[in-house]
């Protein structure tokens, strides 16, 4: 048996891995041929739409299907919430109307809404105001903690000691910053809303479902429908955005399955745009009051903060672990208050907690630099510590430091930087620079790849994974092609079905690590069998055979080789089939790991008269271990930066304080950046051998973390005034300027 080494080839020995490739499904997506869940239309299907609750907190007194049933074209109505039910957020679906067309379904929903009666209850949606939340009885204590270098004496009261010690440390600090910062709730706003097209065949459910969790959703459908997971097939070839919000079967899709069963017809139910924004997922807000003490060099010695925010109706706030973000001062006290609002519960949003942690704490570090009249880059750098005595978590200080140097060069930081508020003005426009840093885990998830090699030489894989837009198919093909010495186009990749071998949900940047493991292992195992067959034919040692350039060739004697096709003809009549399996934490590996660092810098221009902020330049330097597919990796970072510009400058959920209605839940009013708003973006993939040797690490989350902090800091550098809460809308810029007396 040929020896198998589960490792990656060296960077200078690859022919496919780490090279630039077009996305495998690129042309299908660009020409409209790619079919998303919304695009799956089944014969004789019904279109279903949900009736959303018009008030954020109410008790239903009358709900009736009668009016909807009278609408021509309406076939079936299912009431989800009966009279007497207490509804805790606006948009919650109360009923589903299934009809012959979109128009008829919408008319049926409207008829039901007109007949709906409810009793309004108290609403709370203004969580930025902590005192108001307390007065409304909407707060609970969150998980906070205190860490101090000194311990309380045996006879001292611990809380009293902590209080005194924090005050002492602050008093002894050369520089103290007191600040208030925040970041509002945003939504996932997937362009393809949540939903499914479902049908029953012989008592089994086929769910075309917009999901980032192909392998894990079948059971979620099965349980409420009283069938087994084996009786459910979940399909998703293409998904129009997920960002952490599409892991579930969701009750509306399960309702669609019930209606399909009841009517004997396929049913399509996709959320309407406003429902997508109200129900399809949101990211918790975070607001913080902080006192920070630093020594004369700007090294942070003490951090004392109270933060609050909401994750929606169940209550919850940004986790304390990201406060302060990345940096780990030796003395810190963190008080957390959870707030319950009348909004749908949050869903995981790309790098949960981290973007908020960065945006509400790296601003305080920048304010420290401003107070000292120091260069922000120098203050960030000084607080990294050393690899032996780190002042940060996640990546090593030396990684952040090296990335800071690269980013500073790409930004031309030294030449452009000026003390906060001291830059030259062109008319009413001032410019500024800001930065922030971030970390993320990104270790691969469990994944199994079934790989088939046919006697004619064709290669096919099956894996119950999905492609969120990462380029999962392309990554898989690159890994298999590299391993078998074939071109990428030779590999047929199959994903997007729960009937394929199980692979983890695409969340937390775990996919590329996981599928690279499973596909590399499957391909190496299959290759070992082929090497054995070829070794017997050529009468050479299988251990001397490698796959390269479409051949199986001897490393000892280049004259001894067979073409890939000829090698595969030795398989016999049946295809060679292997399964490569990776179980996180169980499978010993050097091919993947976790823990990355990144540095980002922003250059903005701010008009002091209009409050408008324009992105001039943004630099993102990112470590991700071994880079499988640099072209798609760059795209992920461009995209993450743009999504970061979105939450830094544009998007916010705005709720009416009286009714709790999410008033800007449409694309026209839920502001997102457009092509002209992004400025110049420079992406640098950081892959020295020290990091590449750690293997593959996921990339989806890390680069979306820092833009909020970096852009806010750049605006503060430009204005000499902190605009405390993100998004930094023109109104907020002008308010912050109005509060500050002109120097």
């Amino acid at each position, binding site marked *: 048996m040929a020896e198998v080494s589960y490792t990656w080839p060296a960077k200078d020995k690859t022919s496919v891995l780490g090279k630039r490739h*077009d996305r495998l499904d690129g*042309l299908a997506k*660009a020409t409209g041929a790619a079919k998303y869940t919304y695009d799956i239309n089944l014969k004789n299907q019904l279109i279903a739409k949900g009736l959303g609750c018009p008030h954020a907190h109410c008790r239903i007194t009358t709900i009736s299907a009668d009016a909807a049933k009278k609408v021509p074209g309406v076939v079936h109505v299912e009431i989800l919430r009966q009279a007497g039910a207490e509804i805790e957020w606006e948009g919650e679906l109360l009923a589903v109307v299934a009809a012959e067309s979109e128009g008829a379904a919408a008319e049926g929903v409207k008829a039901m809404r007109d007949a709906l009666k409810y009793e309004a209850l108290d609403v709370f949606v203004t969580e930025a105001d902590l005192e108001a939340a307390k007065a409304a009885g909407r707060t609970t204590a969150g998980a906070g903690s205190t860490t101090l270098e000194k311990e309380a004496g045996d006879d001292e009261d611990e809380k009293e000691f902590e209080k005194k010690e924090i005050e002492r440390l602050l008093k002894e600090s050369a520089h103290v910053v007191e600040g208030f910062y925040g970041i509002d709730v945003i939504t996932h706003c997937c362009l393809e809303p949540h939903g499914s097209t479902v049908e029953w065949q012989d008592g089994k459910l086929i769910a075309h479902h917009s999901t980032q969790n192909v392998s894990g959703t079948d059971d979620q459908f099965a349980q409420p429908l009283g069938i087994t997971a084996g009786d459910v097939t979940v399909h998703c070839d293409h998904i129009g955005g997920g960002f952490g919000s599409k892991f579930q079967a969701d009750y509306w899709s399960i309702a669609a399955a019930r209606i399909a069963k009841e009517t004997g017809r396929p049913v399509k139910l*996709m959320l309407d745009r406003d429902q997508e924004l109200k129900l399809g997922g949101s990211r918790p807000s975070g607001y913080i009051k902080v006192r920070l003490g630093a020594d004369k060099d700007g090294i942070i010695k003490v951090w004392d903060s109270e933060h609050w925010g909401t994750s929606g109706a169940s209550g919850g706030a940004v986790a304390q672990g990201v406060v302060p973000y990345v940096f780990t001062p030796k003395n810190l006290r963190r008080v957390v208050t959870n707030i319950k609002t009348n909004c749908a519960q949050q869903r995981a949003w790309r790098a949960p907690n981290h973007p908020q942690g960065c945006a509400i704490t790296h601003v305080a570090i920048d304010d420290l630099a401003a107070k000292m009249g120091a260069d922000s880059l120098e203050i960030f750098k000084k607080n990294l510590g050393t690899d032996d005595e780190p002042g940060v978590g996640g990546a090593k200080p030396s990684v952040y430091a090296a990335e800071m140097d690269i980013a500073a060069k790409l930004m031309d930081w030294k030449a452009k930087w000026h003390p906060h508020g001291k830059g030259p003005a062109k008319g009413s426009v001032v410019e500024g620079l800001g930065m922030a840093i971030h970390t993320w885990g990104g270790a691969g998830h469990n994944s199994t790849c079934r790989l088939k090699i046919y006697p004619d030489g064709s290669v096919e894989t099956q894996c119950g994974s999905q492609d969120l837009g990462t380029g999962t198919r392309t990554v898989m093909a690159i890994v298999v092609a590299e391993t078998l010495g074939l071109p990428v186009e030779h590999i047929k990749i199959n994903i997007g079905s729960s009937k394929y071998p199980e692979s983890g949900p695409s969340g937390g940047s775990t996919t590329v690590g996981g599928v690279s493991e499973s596909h590399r292992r499957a391909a190496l195992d299959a290759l070992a069998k082929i090497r054995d067959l070829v070794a017997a034919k050529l009468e050479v040692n299988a251990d001397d055979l490698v796959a390269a350039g479409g051949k199986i060739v001897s490393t000892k004697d280049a004259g001894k080789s067979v073409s890939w096709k000829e090698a595969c003809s030795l398989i016999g009549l049946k295809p060679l089939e292997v399964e490569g399996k990776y179980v996180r934490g169980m499978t010993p590996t050097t091919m993947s790991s976790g823990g990355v660092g990144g540095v980002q810098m922003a250059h903005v221009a701010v008009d002091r008269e209009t409050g408008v902020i324009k992105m001039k330049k943004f630099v993102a330097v990112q470590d991700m271990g071994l880079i499988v597919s640099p072209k798609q990796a760059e795209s992920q970072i461009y*995209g993450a930066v743009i*999504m970061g510009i979105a939450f830094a400058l544009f998007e916010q959920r705005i709720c009416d304080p009286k009714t709790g209605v999410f008033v800007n839940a449409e694309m026209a009013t839920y502001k997102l950046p*457009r*092509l002209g708003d992004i400025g110049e973006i420079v992406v640098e993939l950081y892959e020295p051998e020290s990091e590449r040797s750690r293997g593959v690490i996921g990339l989806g989350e890390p680069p979306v973390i820092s833009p909020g902090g970096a852009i806010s800091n750049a605006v503060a550098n430009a204005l000499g005034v902190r605009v405390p809460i993100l998004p930094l809308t023109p109104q907020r810029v002008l308010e912050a300027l109005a509060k500050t007396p002109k120097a």
Partner: protein
Amino acid sequence: MVHRTGTAEPASGFSRREFMRGSGAVAAATALASQSQAIAQQAKGTKVVSGEQTISLNVNGKAVQVKAEPRTTLLEVLRYQLDLTGAKPVSHDASSGAATILVDGKPASASVMLALAARGKKIETVESLAGDAVPKAFVTHDAEQCGFCTPGFVVAVRAFLNQKPKATEEEIRAGLNDNICRCGTYANVIQAALAVVKGGANG
């Protein structure tokens, strides 16, 4: 803040400013105009329609028969009856650009155009651009992630470059602001559009 910088030459044939300038007079004359129009239409034999009817449309160079109610959008017809699902339903008011198609060669949103209003017009969807340089440039420059906005963006870029075959980067940044991408492919779209300009595959 104004995000939509708009194109220099609006596809609709009249500018927002002209519309605003004219709207006062329009309001004053509305009652009279609607009455006289109704009379004129009766004289011409046009009539109020209701219920479903079969109509003929010209889509991607072919005459097709489809069923439509007065409220049926062109987008619904394309997606549910003609299996042309490239144009996507993202917003009801065309503010995302995901349903961008070409109507008589100009960009329009199929989500706000009624099927009945599309009669007699030349409708082209992204599917008709399969051999065009724009989708190829999108692939080469990886101007797509989840891809849901991509077909609308491809049509928008094609329409924009038809009008401005030698567009500069500045013009591209100023003129392609009717489409929203949530994954953030804008930087790549700019490169793709520039590549099409450089490749000369325009107009």
